[in-house]
C-alpha cells in the first residue's frame, strides 16, 4: 500500500464523509419525525390517516432505496417535480427510514400494558397527560435500541447516493479507482471512513442494548 497515495486522497474522503453525514442526518431527522407522527396515528387509530400510513409503510418497506431514489431523481422531473440531488437524498432516506421508524415506535407503544394507562386514568389524568407522563417516557426508552439500529441501517443505505451523482464516500472511491487504478488504497480508505462513521454508533447501540437487557430504571 502506498502511504503517499493515502495521504493525497485523505482530504477527498474527508469531504465525502462530511457530505454523507450531512445528508444522512437530515434524512434521519426526517425519518424520526415521520416515525413519531405515523406511530401516533396508528396507535390512536385515526380514521383515513391510518390507512394512508399503512399503504406508505408497505410501499417503502417493499422497494429498494436505490429504486426510490431513481424514481424521485430521474422520473419525477418528467412530470414537473424537480429536486436537487441533495434534497433527493434527504427525501429518499427520510421516506424509507420513516417507514421503519414508525414500526419501531409503534412496537414501543404497544409494549406498555393497557393497565398502565388505566392506572393513570384512575388518577384522573386526561389522554394527553397519560401519553405524556406515563406512556411516552416508557415507550421511547424501549424504542432506543431499535432506533439506533435504524440509524445504522440508514447510514449504511447512504452508500447508494453515488448513483444520483452525490459525491459521497462510495462515489469518491469509485471515481478514484476509475481514474488512477489505485484500487487497494481506495478501498482501504473507504472501509476506514465507514468505520469512522458507523463504529461509534454501533458501540453505543451495543451498550444501550446491554443496559436495556440487564437493567431498568433504578439501577
Amino acid at each position: 500500500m502506498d502511504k503517499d497515495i493515502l495521504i493525497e486522497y485523505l482530504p477527498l474522503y474527508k469531504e465525502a464523509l462530511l457530505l454523507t453525514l450531512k445528508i444522512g442526518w437530515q434524512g434521519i431527522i426526517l425519518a424520526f419525525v415521520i416515525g413519531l407522527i405515523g406511530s401516533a396515528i396508528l396507535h390512536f387509530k385515526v380514521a383515513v390517516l391510518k390507512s394512508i400510513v399503512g399503504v406508505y409503510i408497505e410501499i417503502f418497506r417493499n422497494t429498494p432505496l436505490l429504486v426510490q431514489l431513481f424514481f424521485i431523481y430521474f422520473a419525477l422531473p418528467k412530470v414537473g417535480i424537480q429536486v436537487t440531488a441533495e434534497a433527493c437524498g434527504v427525501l429518499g432516506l427520510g421516506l424509507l427510514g420513516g417507514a421503519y421508524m414508525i414500526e419501531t415506535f409503534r412496537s414501543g407503544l404497544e409494549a406498555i400494558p393497557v393497565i398502565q394507562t388505566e392506572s393513570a386514568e384512575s388518577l384522573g389524568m386526561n389522554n394527553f397527560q397519560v401519553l405524556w407522563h406515563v406512556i411516552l417516557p416508557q415507550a421511547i426508552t424501549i424504542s432506543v435500541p431499535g432506533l439506533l439500529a435504524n440509524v445504522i441501517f440508514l447510514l449504511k443505505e447512504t452508500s447508494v447516493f453515488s448513483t444520483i451523482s452525490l459525491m459521497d464516500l462510495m462515489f469518491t472511491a469509485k471515481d478514484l479507482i476509475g481514474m488512477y487504478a489505485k484500487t487497494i488504497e481506495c478501498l482501504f480508505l473507504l472501509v476506514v471512513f465507514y468505520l469512522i462513521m458507523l463504529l461509534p454508533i454501533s458501540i453505543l447501540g451495543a451498550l444501550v442494548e446491554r443496559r436495556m437487557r440487564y437493567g431498568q430504571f433504578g439501577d
Partner: protein
Amino acid sequence: MSELLKVTHLHKEFGPNVVLKDINLSVKKGEVVVIIGPSGCGKSTFLRCLNGLEEIQSGVITVDGLPVEAGKRDITKLRQKIGMVFQSYELFPHKTVLENIILAPTKVQKRTKEDATREALELLDKVGLVDKKDYYPRQLSGGQKQRVAIVRALLMHPDVILFDEVTAALDPEMVHEVLETMLDLAKSGSTMLIVTHEMAFAEAVADRIIFLDKGDIVEETSDVKDFFIKPKTERAQKFLKTFAYE
C-alpha cells in the same frame, strides 16, 4: 349520613356474556364495603365499572350525585373523587416512589410540588416507607409497592377508594403489612370498596359484606360476624366452605 356512591340497575356484558345483572348498591360516607365471591363472579369488573374503566350497557352509577359515564370528557373530574388500587400495583416504572405519588396531584389537581411532597412524605412515613422515597418501583418488594400505590391513591383525596384484590399477587408474608395499612385507613373513616379473598381480613374490616356470584348480588348483610358463622344463602355457605379444611 349521606349517600356517597349509588348504583342502580347496573347491567354489564362482554359480547354474549352477561357479567353483571341488575346490580343495586348504595354506599354511605365512611362505610367499608367488602365484596367477596368465587373467581369470575364479576367482582373486579364491578369495581372497574365504578370509575368508568369499563363501559356499562345500562343502569346508573353516581358518585356524590354526579353520573359516572365511561368515555365522557368530564370522567377525569370524577376519577379524582374515586381512587383505585390494582392487584398488580401499576406504579410507573420510570418514576421514583415520590414522583409516582405526586405526579397526579401536581399535574391533574395543579397543587404545588412543595405541598404535594410534604403530604406525600407524611403519608409515606405513616406506612413506614419514607426512607424509600427516592427508590424506583423495581427496587421495592411487592408489599412495599402496594403500600406506595395506596399512598398514591390517597394523595388525590378521593371520596371513595376501590381496592381490587390488592393482596392477590403478594407473597404470604407481605399480605399482612398491606392489610394493616388498609385497616388503619378504615379506622380513620375512609370510604372503601374492597374486593378480596382474605376472609379473616374481610371479617375484621367490613361494615357490610356483599356476596357476588355469577353477576348477581346473592347476599348482602351488615351482620358481618353472623355472615361468616352462618350465611343465609346456600351459595354463600358453599363458597365459604372452600376456605375451610376439615
